[in-house]
């Protein structure tokens, strides 16, 4: 069995599972946020009206809650939702509720690794499509709708069809100035936004071994944009070290068997990779940066679960050090812990000296919610994950998706720029 099959076999108490088997798995962790949470509360209200008991959750210690999409509260309705969410967690005794303005909080997928909320081998579900991110820790991580999350909250189980697995073998370390974001965009460009539908995308090979945990998180994060059920990397010592430094103990490192089967193998040579961007209006619309259209950018946005982890900010700082931005540039660290490290290590000073506005952790303009959304005809380069029409604001705005380094280099020149070409 491969890693996904082994995790699902463990989760469902079976000795073996195969692709297309429908299994009922015990869930180890479940997450909801300020958009899916109120949706789940609504489902609970409906169940109550039908006379179904929602008096207690299956296990409040396995539930955690993030505030990220419309926080700090964008306006009255989102403020109401935050109040509703707080009442819910208090009522059901959920202690792991990361509230803005009260220490650590941030984008749910970032909290999942920053706070070691999810462990290798876990079956982890969240009320958000980028739950896939956390597969980089060696967990089976996938997004669900509100009704499914409500079900998991009550019963601690959910059914899955065991996915087929595509194996992406990456040979060799990524060259300088080429980031994990470039690689995953390249892969999406090759297989298309539905190329991974219903599949697990597993990443391995020496290129992944060499990668930091945070780069692997970027890879798994955007498997969502390929339509995949999830993404996964087999856990190694780097994952153990990463989670240990965040207080985790007791690891159960599940890895695939030597004779594991995969539906398809894809191979990439790292040395052939270059910085790329996804042009509007699809993440599969890939071109290498040096061949990108010469458009006048209005904005550079460095944020989100995809592109505002600590490592991403370090890469941005390398580019911005001693330079000034030419267009509006925003940096929103994805969690308070990242913000704090950025402050302690002098990154914030580099950003502010360059003329950047540094904002609080939030999904913000990534999903067009608030904190810098785009006007009609505005063109943005962004470290986020989607560039569908209107994703970051006006339906006639445009977003180019890029790595943090490309977004920073482009902020300096005002045009889409390969960081290797900066003067």
């Amino acid at each position: 069995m491969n890693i996904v099959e082994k995790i699902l076999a463990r989760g469902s108490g079976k000795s073996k599972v195969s692709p297309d088997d429908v299994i009922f798995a015990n869930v180890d962790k479940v997450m909801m946020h300020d958009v899916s949470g109120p949706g789940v509360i609504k489902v609970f209200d409906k169940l109550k009206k039908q006379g179904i008991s929602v008096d207690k959750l299956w296990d409040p210690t396995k539930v955690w809650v993030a505030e990220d999409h419309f926080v700090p509260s964008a306006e009255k309705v989102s403020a109401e939702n935050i109040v509703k969410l707080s009442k819910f967690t208090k009522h059901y005794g959920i202690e792991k509720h990361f509230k803005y303005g009260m220490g650590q909080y941030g984008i749910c997928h970032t909290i999942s690794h920053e706070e070691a909320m999810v462990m290798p081998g876990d079956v982890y579900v969240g009320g958000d499509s980028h739950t896939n991110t956390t597969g980089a820790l060696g967990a089976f991580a996938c997004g669900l709708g509100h009704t499914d999350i409500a079900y998991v909250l009550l019963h601690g189980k959910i059914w899955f069809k065991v996915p087929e697995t595509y194996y992406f073998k990456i040979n060799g370390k990524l060259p300088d100035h080429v980031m994990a974001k470039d690689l995953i965009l390249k892969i999406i460009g090759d297989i298309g936004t539905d190329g991974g539908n219903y599949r697990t995308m597993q990443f391995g090979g020496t290129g992944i071994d060499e990668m930091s945990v945070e780069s692997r998180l970027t890879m798994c994060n955007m498997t969502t944009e390929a339509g995949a059920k999830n993404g996964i990397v087999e856990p190694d010592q780097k994952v153990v070290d990463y989670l240990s430094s965040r207080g985790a103990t007791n690891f159960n490192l599940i890895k695939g068997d030597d004779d594991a089967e995969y539906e398809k193998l894809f191979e990439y040579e790292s040395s052939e990779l270059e910085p790329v961007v996804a042009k509007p209006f699809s993440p599969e619309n890939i071109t290498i940066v040096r061949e990108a259209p010469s458009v006048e950018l209005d904005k550079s946005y460095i944020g989100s679960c995809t592109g505002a982890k600590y490592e991403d900010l370090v890469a941005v700082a390398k580019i911005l050090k001693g330079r000034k931005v030419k267009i509006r540039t925003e940096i929103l660290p994805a969690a308070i812990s990242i913000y704090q490290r950025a402050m302690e290590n002098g990154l914030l000073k580099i950003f502010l000296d360059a003329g950047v506005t540094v904002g609080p952790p939030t999904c913000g303009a990534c999903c067009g919610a608030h904190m810098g959304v785009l006007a009609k005809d505005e063109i943005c380069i962004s470290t986020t994950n989607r560039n569908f029409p209107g994703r970051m604001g006006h339906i006639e705005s445009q977003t180019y998706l890029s790595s943090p380094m490309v977004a920073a280099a482009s902020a300096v020149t005002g045009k889409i720029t390969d960081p290797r070409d900066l003067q």
Partner: protein
Amino acid sequence: MESFKTVKSIITPLDEVNIDTDQIVPKQFLKLVQKSGFGKFLFYNWRFDEKENPKPDFVLNNSKYVGSHILVAGDNFGCGSSREHAVWALQDYGFTVIIAPSFADIFFSNCFKNGILPISLDQKIVENLQQTTDPIEVNLETQTIKTSSDEIFFKIDSHMKKILLDGLDDISQTLQFEDKITDFEKRSKIPSVL
């Protein structure tokens, strides 16, 4: 959830691929959580201009399609954000069947929780259906679509079929066995997570 019955109606053709959930319900409406009433936000940015006037060239604003319960769209329908609001909006607007060559995973699953039947068919068949102007009949029991000239068989997972036919979402379905579950939990010493 109401049980799914046979649906007979004309189809609404939406010949676009990769329709993502933000096109189905734009993010500005996500803060609202009443499950009903989302129909008015369905395809909002495609349906209405800046001044909230209907755009005449968008298919839902064509009076010909008023009362249609069957949406026929392109590949990878429902990709993007996992927002269940997208399904709520389609259902509230009146669509009970969505036909496309393929669906995004979470969207597909959300449909069954809300009484919508997603049907995946070959590209060629979907293209033909998009041209159909006569009413078609979708029968879940027999897994067939009857057009004026043809009868098309579609596949559906037997469990999902039962969910829709019985009008039970997963929760109500499990809770039919609540007594047995409680009884088992009282007797069982097995930890809830193995």
